[in-house]
């Protein structure tokens, strides 16, 4: 069995604000093994980014409260002193962010920013670090890395910047690479390249990857395991195959129905999930998805647990419908709105 790198147990993150307590993450569990790609999927405000930032301790603040546990190789990270955490950050757990346009400091050379990542954690000469930065840029596919290493971020295109960000994140050969919406700000053609790059480098660097996205299409290619989040909670969790071919939660159906697919009859309109995500200060009672769920019934006043309800072990969901009902009802959502209109 592969080495277990991360264990997240009952993680809750709450921010005290003037309007009340925001329950950004409200009970998340997962594990991550070496070589694995975990996709965390959900719309804005579902708590996926906060989960990722919390792994690195970047949500620490006097107004933040944590519950549960995050263990990296058995070591609990939530209560680790800031100094110790700095040694792990960028070294063993590294992160790539959503917008490559703003994620690099505009006044420093790209190479110097990668060098900074290296020298922060390793006692190497500036020259060696620079040589490694150049090599990293080559590995992520930047043409003429010897020359481009001295460029400033604004001289890079969006895709190149995201490649450089990946180079920066991989600089210290981290065990876990967290990619928070790494392709959202990029052209569709570049998106696929970046995802392939992450997938390839994961093997070269022997790391595990947490890929956070709102787009199930992005994780379709590379993820092994998928976590669907809604309003700070996991609503469905399973192997990629199970999520795509046997989705159990109506929210997952909605996400799947909203991506155009070539292997299904062309719908008149793609499915869209009505309404908007609930307030995290005053979440709805019972199932959090209830107000937007076309299938909601009485029982949904009470929140279902995250349980294994299908034959497939390890495929968990949070929905009261019986498996048969789900399999019957989901077809309409998945197929889009062709039938209704026609």
């Amino acid at each position, binding site marked *: 069995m592969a080495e277990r790198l991360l264990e997240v147990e009952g993680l809750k993150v709450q921010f005290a604000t003037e309007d009340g307590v925001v329950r950004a993450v409200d009970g998340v569990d997962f594990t991550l093994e070496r070589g694995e790609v975990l996709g965390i999927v959900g719309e804005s405000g579902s708590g996926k980014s906060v989960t990722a930032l919390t792994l*690195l301790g*970047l949500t620490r603040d006097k107004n933040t409260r944590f519950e549960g546990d995050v263990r990296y190789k058995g070591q609990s990270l939530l209560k680790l002193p*800031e*100094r110790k955490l*700095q*040694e*792990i*950050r*960028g*070294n063993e757990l*590294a*992160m790539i*962010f959503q*917008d490559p346009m*703003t*994620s*690099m*400091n*505009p*006044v420093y050379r790209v190479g110097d920013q990668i060098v*900074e*990542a290296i020298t*922060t*954690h390793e006692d190497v000469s500036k020259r060696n670090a620079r040589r490694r930065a150049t090599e990293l840029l080559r590995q992520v596919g930047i043409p003429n890395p010897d020359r481009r290493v001295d460029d*400033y971020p*604004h001289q890079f295109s969006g895709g190149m910047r995201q490649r450089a*960000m990946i180079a*920066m994140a991989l600089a210290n050969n981290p065990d876990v690479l967290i990619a928070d919406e790494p392709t959202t700000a990029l052209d569709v053609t570049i998106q696929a390249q970046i995802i392939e790059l992450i997938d390839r480098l994961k093997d070269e660097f022997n790391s595990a990857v947490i890929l956070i996205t709102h787009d199930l299409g992005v994780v379709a290619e590379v993820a092994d395991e998928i976590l669907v989040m809604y309003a700070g909670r996991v609503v469905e969790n399973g192997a990629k195959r199970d999520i795509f071919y046997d989705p159990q939660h109506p929210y997952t159906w909605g996400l799947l129905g909203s991506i155009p697919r070539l292997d299904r009859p062309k719908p008149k309109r793609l499915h869209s999930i009505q309404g908007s995500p609930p307030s995290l200060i005053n979440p709805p009672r019972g199932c959090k998805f209830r107000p937007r769920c076309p299938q909601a019934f009485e029982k949904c006043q009470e929140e279902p647990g995250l349980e294994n309800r299908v034959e497939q072990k390890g495929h968990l969901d949070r929905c009261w419908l019986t498996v048969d009902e789900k399999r019957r009802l989901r077809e309409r959502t998945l197929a889009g709105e062709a039938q209704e209109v026609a």
Partner: protein
Amino acid sequence: MLAFLVRRFVGMVLVLIAVSFIVFLIFIVVPGGDPAQRIAGRTATQQNIENIRHDWGFDQPFYVQYKDMMQKAFTNKLVSYSNQTEVVSQIKQGLPATFSLAIGAGIIWLFFGIVVGVISAVTAGRWSDRLVTVLALIGISMPVFWLGLIVRYYLAEGGLTTFFPDGGYVPLTQDPAQWFSHLILPWAVLSVLFIGFYGRVLRSNILDSINEDYVRTARAKGLNPRTVLLKHVLRNSLIPIVTLFGLDFAAVIGGGAILTETVFDLHGVGQYAANAIGSFDLPPIMGVTLFGAFFIVFFSAVIDALYALLDPRIRPT
């Protein structure tokens, strides 16, 4: 680079022409400013005044007068109406005092402005931030002439102590220790306003850039908080401060610290200007204005060059 310099130089000349023209026009338009009467003195006959008016060219059309004045200004022949001293040599005499005041105060206000800004931004919302904020507002609110007089009364004239010398300027070349002690109070008084102002501006700049994505990236790299602050936050927050400093410093070095120089009797360019304004004496006012405008234009060109150095995005490629 050459194109930049040429462009800036042409711009500078145009600005100076415009400024001098405006100053001249204001003088023509403002009533009660007949210089011939002033030069002639109180007991002059009408004939005297007429003679002076003719000799000095005040009976010429204003554009001829303007041309004459500009000619004189750039050939060192500009002469005061009220006491017939040479304007350029008077300005030169005032330079050491004005430069000493400006450079010393500039260093003080820049340094403490940054310290105040950083402290209040880093501790934003806590008591030290509030304290510094209140002090800064008090500093901004105190008029220089009032603060100068109070300080002079209490610390130099015996209100509390006579520890500091009571006004005046001692050249650096004559006695460095005396030069220093004579300038401490003027430096402090002139800096107070700027420290408060710069501190406020820097505080909000820092609080803006601390939420930038690249700062999050820097933290995610595992940098310690001090490096993140100094290298990634402060570097970017200081860029607007450079603009402010360039213009403020140019104004003070160009004789703009009129109040401070006058209150502490420093005999600098600013005090010279104040006296000239008091006696409605156009040539020195024109001289000092051009002198000051030159520094403003010059330093704004320097700032533009510095900007390119600080921010690679605006460098010409």
